[in-house]
């Protein structure tokens, strides 16, 4: 692995809550290499945003340690933040300022050389397709424009490491594609990116590595394809079939041992065969063989039984429900383990 830009060891952050304390980040061990795009995946409350805040030195950890560029974010917060760009979950842009005024203010705050501020702001406005709206109040911007402005702001000082928290949340597909292209470009420039996202397809497409968090703990980590192959093996099966009157293929599969999440795909017909399409998750090849036997026995005409390639979504849902050990229980999983 190249030189790590982020290393955390047993990083923990607790918050006071009614009736006790809540651990938002729980003994997190994480390493991000220079030039790597790492996805932090997890539900709301999984600890993604808190992790970003801890690494940027705006939140102090309860215990454990973090190093960003070899610096302690708590003690050297200013130095860390001068090399880090953050795009927060909500764009956090001032509605009452123009796009240009907002960027100019933040260029000053990030210490962009005075002589470069105007050019840098213009360059980013153009680069994010905001030049025409630059002097309009941000309050009149669309959600996509605000998101792009927040991204432009995160890049003002040419940071070596970027934290992008849900950068495509609420964006239309075109705007989301533009953000994805931008992340690829950043990786191409050798920058490290930590991408917090719910968008599993996006994580699969963009990330060199993903880290799945649940209740502040790492429950899985690795390259998206490797994780999918490992955790999603033999799972999703697609059945194209024509059933006689009174036979429900999906219902028959659901009744079988080793099958779950069986659904009839909307639209039904496949390839002009007047056949329905049913997908489900089979435990293993034996479960698939048994299903074929049962369906043939029920006079169902089978046109195809295909195993689809598993993706991150399969991994995510396979992990969902796998609760990490509670406090006082076994040691938490570390990155690289499941």
């Amino acid at each position, binding site marked *: 692995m190249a030189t790590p830009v982020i290393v955390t060891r047993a990083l923990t952050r607790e918050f006071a809550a009614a009736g006790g304390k809540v651990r938002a980040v729980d003994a997190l061990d994480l390493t991000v290499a220079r030039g790597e795009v790492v996805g932090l995946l997890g539900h709301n409350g999984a600890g993604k945003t808190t992790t970003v805040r801890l690494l940027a030195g705006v939140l102090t950890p309860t215990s454990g340690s973090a190093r960003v560029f070899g610096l302690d974010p708590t003690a050297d917060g200013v130095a860390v933040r001068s090399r*880090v760009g953050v795009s927060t979950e909500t764009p956090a842009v001032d509605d009452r*300022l123009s796009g240009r*005024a907002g960027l100019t203010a933040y260029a*000053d705050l990030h*210490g962009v050389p005075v002589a470069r501020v105007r050019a840098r702001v213009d360059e980013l406005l153009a680069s994010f397709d905001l030049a025409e709206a630059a002097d309009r109040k941000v309050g009149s911007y669309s959600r996509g424009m605000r998101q792009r402005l927040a991204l432009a*702001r995160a890049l003002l000082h040419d940071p070596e490491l970027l934290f992008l928290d849900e950068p495509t949340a609420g964006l239309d597909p075109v705007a989301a594609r533009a953000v994805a292209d931008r992340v690829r470009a950043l990786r191409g420039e050798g920058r490290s990116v930590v991408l917090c996202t719910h968008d599993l397809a996006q994580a699969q497409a963009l990330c060199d590595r993903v880290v799945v968090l649940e209740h502040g703990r790492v429950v899985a980590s690795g390259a998206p394809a490797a994780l999918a192959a490992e955790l999603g093996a033999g799972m999703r099966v697609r059945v194209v079939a024509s059933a006689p009157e009174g036979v429900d293929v999906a219902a028959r599969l659901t009744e079988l041992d080793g099958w779950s999440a069986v659904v009839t795909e909307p639209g039904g017909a496949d390839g002009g065969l007047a056949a329905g399409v049913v997908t489900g998750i089979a435990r293993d090849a034996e479960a698939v063989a048994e299903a074929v036997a049962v369906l043939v026995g029920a006079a169902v005409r089978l046109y195809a039984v295909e195993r689809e390639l598993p993706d991150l979504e399969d991994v995510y849902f396979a992990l969902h429900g796998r609760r990490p050990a509670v406090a006082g229980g076994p040691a938490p999983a570390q990155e690289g383990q499941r």
Partner: protein
Amino acid sequence: MNLRAVRAIVRKDLTVVLQSKAVLLPIIIVPLVLLLVLPIVASFAPQFVNLPGAGDLRGMLEQMPEAFQQRFAHLTEAQTIVTLLLVYLFAPMYLIVPLMVASVIAADAFAGEKERRTLEALLFTPTTDRELLLGKLLSGFVPAMAVAWGGFLIYAVVANAAAWPTMGRIFFPTAMWWVLALWVAPAVAAVGLGATVLVSARVNTFQEAYQIGGVVVLPIVVLLLGQATGVLVFSLGLVVVLGAVFWAVAAALLFFGARGFSRSEILSRS
């Protein structure tokens, strides 16, 4: 200290503040009424000196300490009324201006920014907590003093001009008013800022911060009542002491407010 960053915060906050009617209206209307309309009305008070009710002012003056009454010994009745109103009774009201402007803008800069969810972006900048706090405090202090001193100037011009037929000379500002404007007004603005910083750490909206922080106007009300009843008559000496007291209170409020102002605290509470 990164002064460029501090200036950037002040500039940004003031630009944002000037776009908000909820913030801008009180900042314009209150000084306008207290420092422009009231002195004009007060300057015409001698014309109503024989009307029922005018005796209240004479009665009020008679309740004042003997030493205070001596200040009016060489004045005509009309001049006494003008001087009593413009120099003494309105003096505590002048202090409302820096207090209110500082509190409104600070409430917007601290709690309002939390409410608009723009504070987080500021927290991720390479500034120290102290620079952030200083920037936010100056965002309230600079306009408060600009309005207070600008208002003082306008009040002086209006009072002298409107009361010229009665006074026949430039009688304002007095030494007491110079001290009030240059020593007490900044202290009162600092009290407003300190109270707002303390309150803003515990609330999440501009309105909450402004309303709860509004209790700091009570000492001014006490001064008004004290002045009107003769219990606390403004004089040069009293105003100097008053300024020192307000500075001490401001220092305490800012000390405790600054202690709670850290990124981690702000994010832990939000």
